[in-house]
């Protein structure tokens, strides 16, 4: 699936995160910023990548601004941003 328009999900309140996705031509470009990057940066990046591959997204610019969210929150915000950015009408819930 392809990101066709810029989209955003989430807030910068504590324990939440903001995910911004936008179209890009050459591959995936993921930027993760987190207040707890030192401790959890790798884990956050892993969840982000995992969600992207669940949607089969191979192109796009992804910016994550994390304020210490739990994995399930990260996944939820990622899914929302991707669904908005891909203008998906039908959602394959079983894949999520």
């Amino acid at each position, binding site marked *: 699936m392809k990101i066709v328009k*810029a989209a*955003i999900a989430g*807030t*910068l*309140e504590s324990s*939440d995160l*903001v995910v*911004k996705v*936008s179209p890009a031509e050459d591959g995936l*470009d993921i*930027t993760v*910023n987190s207040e707890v990057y030192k401790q959890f940066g790798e884990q956050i990046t892993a969840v982000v990548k995992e969600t992207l591959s669940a949607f089969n997204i191979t192109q796009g*610019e992804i*910016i994550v*601004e994390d304020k210490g969210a739990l994995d399930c929150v990260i996944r939820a915000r990622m899914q929302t941003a991707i669904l908005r950015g891909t203008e998906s009408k039908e959602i394959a819930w079983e894949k999520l």
Partner: protein
Amino acid sequence: MYSDPSLTFETVETHSGTLREEIALFLKSNGLGMDDDIEQFVIARCKRHLVACAGIAGSTLKCIAVDAAWRSTSLGLKVIHEAEAQAIQNGEHQLFLLTTPCNVKAFRGCGFYPLVTLDNRATLMENTPVGIHHYCRKLRKHHQVNASNVGAIVMNANPFTSGHLYLIEQAAKACDWLHIFVVEEDLSTFSFQDRLAMVQEGSRHLPNVTVHPGSRYIISRGTFPGYFLKEKQIVNEVYAAIDLILFRRYIAPALNIRQRFVGTEPFCKVTAQYNFAMHHWLEDETIMADAPIKVNEITRVTDENNLPISASAVRKSLERNDMEAVTRMVPATTLPFLIRWLSRHPFKQSDYNLANVG
């Protein structure tokens, strides 16, 4: 997420008079003025009292204030969040934010990253950690030329005149490669698309020239709004400086630009001031560590009557339907665009026969 139920947010257009006054008063009590180019405000009220506001001017957030009693809460974050959501609804995803350096930390927490700081006066931030870097990476990847003497011109070309052509030819002669950036903001008489095409057509005969869209980082409403408010003759030295520092720090190094060329400006106060600021912010080695860029002012060409050729003179002649004067001031490559423009703006022409145009 805890939120105070008595807090309400709304977006207001700035042309509504009494509201505007209320916001201006609120800003004043927080030591801020109200900028003229703000189109909307996102405001927060608590029991009818104004407690926070953030102004939206195109893709820039500014005039942001939170009532002193609310500053230890997350109201600032909320109002920025609401303003960002409103801007996105307006179609603006990439945002700038203008503030003072002492507030940078607070806005960092709202997802904005500093781009350029001007002494203790102003900081321009953007709502992505990678925006300018991705733009420069793209420039470097696709357009960096292996040459030692690389020059640049920034122009609006509204429309592209013989004066622009002369400037480009002189500059192309003086360096190995020349990058021309056409102001991308669509706020001029001629559309960006037309202006870009006019510059491309007009410089096609030169082998060492690349024409670029100016992007949001070169004389855009975000980096230099005063440029688009020329009629008001508001010379905003803060913005001119921000725009130039941005160029020197990020864009010039991406393309190895060592020189910038500019035409002397006899008419427009804003542009003249910008040219003047250019010498300071691009050339001075003592003000910042980034490599200096030499500024070359090239004397404007004049027409037969010894009047300097300028885009504003062409526009005036166009409005008078004086095609004879117009043809004297623009290269042949520009004419088709002007004719097309005239045919789309029929109210301004009387009964001039377009077939007569050279």
